[in-house]
Structure formats: structure tokens, C-alpha cells
């Protein structure tokens, strides 16, 4: 979706305002939102792309007016309701209408498992042998598609021509993975190099480049 989250190239958002000796969290609730999000993920009801879409799929004005963890909070609430892990009533009242099924409750993350779960992470690669559509040095164009659903091809790259810098191997295709759980389509990911002038016009610095990781499904060959 062409949403407010797709920020690359926007103007007018102000200076960067880096804080000196910034704490990891600025408010206790931020740390709870992070932890709740990670812990609820153990239910296995969504993947990272579904959760990204839940966060980005907000009215643009709300998205831009929200802090990072406010966006995470809204995203988590949405994910829990969409996955039927909680009801709208439970969410608004804060009162449980009954415990999870035994099956789900068994999945709940235990404190002792935290180090192992974080250390393992997820696996986004896939074993399928999908031949790479493009080789290092090939010129490719980002398809000028404007899907209303989740996509990892930023709007500022659409229609632009870059050069394959590296093939990272076969990964889950995020755009499809975001549509529902277990919709894992294997595709190659490439690091694509775009000159700044290709993206932003002749006034950009001549030697500068932007590298973007894109999947087979985002690209077409250029003669």
C-alpha cells in the first residue's frame, strides 16, 4: 500500500533530533509494548510481514502523529483481534471472557525460554531451489505496481532502473507472506543498486547510490 509508512523521499518532516545518551525506553509502557508484542508472537498466529502490515495499515495522519511504540501498540491490538486471540469486547473492557484453549496456552512463552527463542530468531530463507532471474551486473527495473496490500518495494523505487549488486538467496516473499499465515512463496532477494541521480534527478550527488533489497516479484529485466 502507498501508505504514510513508505517515507523514503518525503520532505517536510523536520530535523532528526538525535538525543544524547538516549535510554533504551523512554517510558515503562514502551518496554511493555515491545515485550507483549514479542510474547504474543509465540501464539504462532501471524508472521513478521502480517505484523508489519498491521502497523503500517493506519490512517496516514494517525501514523505520522504516533510514536513508534504507539504504532506497535495499535498493531498488536489489531493482530490479537484479527487472529481471534481476543475479542473486541475483551480489548475495550480489558476483562477476559475466558482463558485461551489449552492448545494455545501451551504455546505461551516462558521466561526460561526467552534466551533460546531470541537467540534462534526466525528463518526467512527457504530451501526451494528457485533459479535466480537475474545475475550480478544485470540491469533491472522495479515494476510500477501500486498494490493496496503490503509490499516491500518502496514507492520511490517504482519504475526506476538499477543494477543487481548481489543475490542474497531464496527467501519468503514478504508481499505474499503478509496476506495470511503460511503463505510462504519462495523467491530470490537481490541487493539492487540505484544511482541517486536515477532516483532523484540530476541534482543528486553523482557518486551516491541507494541499495534496496528486492525480490524476483518486484523486478523485470531491462534490455
Amino acid at each position, binding site marked *: 500500500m502507498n501508505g504514510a*509508512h*513508505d*517515507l*523514503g*523521499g*518525503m*520532505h517536510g*518532516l523536520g530535523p*532528526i*533530533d*538525535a538525543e544524547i545518551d*538516549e535510554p*533504551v525506553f*523512554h*517510558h*515503562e*509502557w514502551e518496554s*511493555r*509494548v*515491545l*515485550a*507483549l508484542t*514479542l*510474547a504474543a508472537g509465540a501464539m504462532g498466529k501471524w508472521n513478521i510481514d502480517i505484523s*508489519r502490515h498491521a*502497523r503500517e495499515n493506519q490512517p496516514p495522519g494517525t501514523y*505520522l502523529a504516533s*510514536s*513508534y511504540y504507539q504504532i506497535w*501498540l495499535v498493531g*498488536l491490538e489489531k493482530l490479537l483481534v484479527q487472529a481471534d486471540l*481476543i475479542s473486541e469486547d*475483551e*480489548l475495550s473492557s*480489558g476483562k477476559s471472557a475466558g*482463558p*485461551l484453549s489449552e492448545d494455545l496456552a501451551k504455546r*505461551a512463552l*516462558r521466561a526460561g*525460554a526467552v*534466551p533460546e*527463542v*531470541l*537467540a*534462534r*530468531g*526466525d528463518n*526467512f530463507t527457504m530451501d526451494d531451489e528457485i533459479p535466480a532471474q537475474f545475475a550480478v551486473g544485470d540491469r533491472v527495473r522495479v515494476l510500477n505496481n501500486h498494490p493496496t496490500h503490503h509490499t516491500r518495494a518502496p514507492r*520511490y523505487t517504482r519504475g526506476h532502473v538499477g543494477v543487481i549488486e548481489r543475490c*542474497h538467496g531464496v527467501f519468503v516473499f514478504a508481499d505474499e507472506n503478509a496476506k495470511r499465515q503460511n503463505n510462504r512463496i519462495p523467491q530470490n*532477494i537481490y*541487493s539492487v543498486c540505484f544511482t*541517486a541521480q536515477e*532516483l532523484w534527478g540530476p541534482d543528486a550527488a553523482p*557518486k*551516491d*547510490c*541507494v*541499495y534496496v533489497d*528486492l525480490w524476483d516479484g518486484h523486478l523485470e529485466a531491462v534490455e
Partner: protein
Amino acid sequence: MSEGHDHSHLSDTELRVRSLESLLVDKGMVNPDALDALIQTYEHKVGPQNGARVVARAWVEPEFKAWLLDDATAAIADMGYHGRQGEHMYVVENTGEVHNLVVCTLCSCYPWPVLGLPPTWYKSAPYRSRAVIDPRGVLAEFGTEVGADVAVRVWDSTAELRYLVLPERPEGTEGMSQEDLGALVGRNAMIGVEKVSAP
């Protein structure tokens, strides 16, 4: 917006988070001690000191540096750093000809095992919007000068690859230990918005 208004807003959020947490605990979905363990991890155990150790080792061990640039995931895992939001690592090297900068324009992807959780500015709309269209303006705002003869390479973390910048080792650090070198390397240098200075 007034300070007062801002505070009442945060307060609403706080109540909302507490209500959600107690609901999920009541339902048996989350264990409070698991939440504490998650928070402890990112508040105290995982942070940019990890990445700094990787950088310092690459500065003193040429073989490790070659491995890091060739297969960052394996080389970094060799130091004990791996897992969530660092499953697939890629290291980009700053030189006299190239300056690298990492961003995630679409959300806030960041290499957690080596840098911890991202700072607010990295997740903010100003950084995410400007890093790709005006990287030199962003660098200048961090006080980092990059000559016109140096190529600025911006890495937009749009997939599950996570990027770490290997900064240039500053001159005048020839005699320093790996540990002392690590202490020089800050988070911002590994994102690419600053350079590492000699002590």
C-alpha cells in the same frame, strides 16, 4: 501542542497498555516473568557494545574482517551474536572512497543482536524520509562531513537482511588493544551517521 496535552496523551496510552497486559496475562497468553526477561535482555544484555566488539575484532584480525565481509551472519555468530532481527547479516565497509549509511524507510528494521533496539531518531519519520533522498544533509546534521569525491551508499533494509557498517579505523590507534578499540566504536558509527574518532 502543549506539554500538558502531551502528558495526558501518554497517560491514556499507559492505561491502554496496562489494560492489554492484564487481559493477556488473565487469558494465559503471556507470562509476566517472560515479559520481564524480554525487557531485561534489551535493556541490559544486548546493545551496541556487541557490534563494537565485532568491529574491533575486524580491525585487528584481517582474516576475521575478510570472513565478516564475505559471510557476516556466520562471522558474527562466531562471536555469539545471532537470532531475532539479525538472522541474516550483511556488513558494509567504510573506506576513503565509500561511506555507508543504513536506514529502513518502510518501518524500522535494525540489527538487534549487534546493536540492540534502535534509537528513536532511527525510527523517526525525519530520518526514514531523508536518509535516501538527502543522505549528505543527514550526515551533516550529525556533524559528519563526507567529501564530494566519496561515494555515499545508503542501504534501505527492505528485506530480512540486516546491515552493519564497518567504520574506518581511526588513525593513531595502532597500539591500542582490541578491547580499547571497541570502546571507541559507538552505535551511530555502525549505523553510518558518524565516523569513529581516535581517543
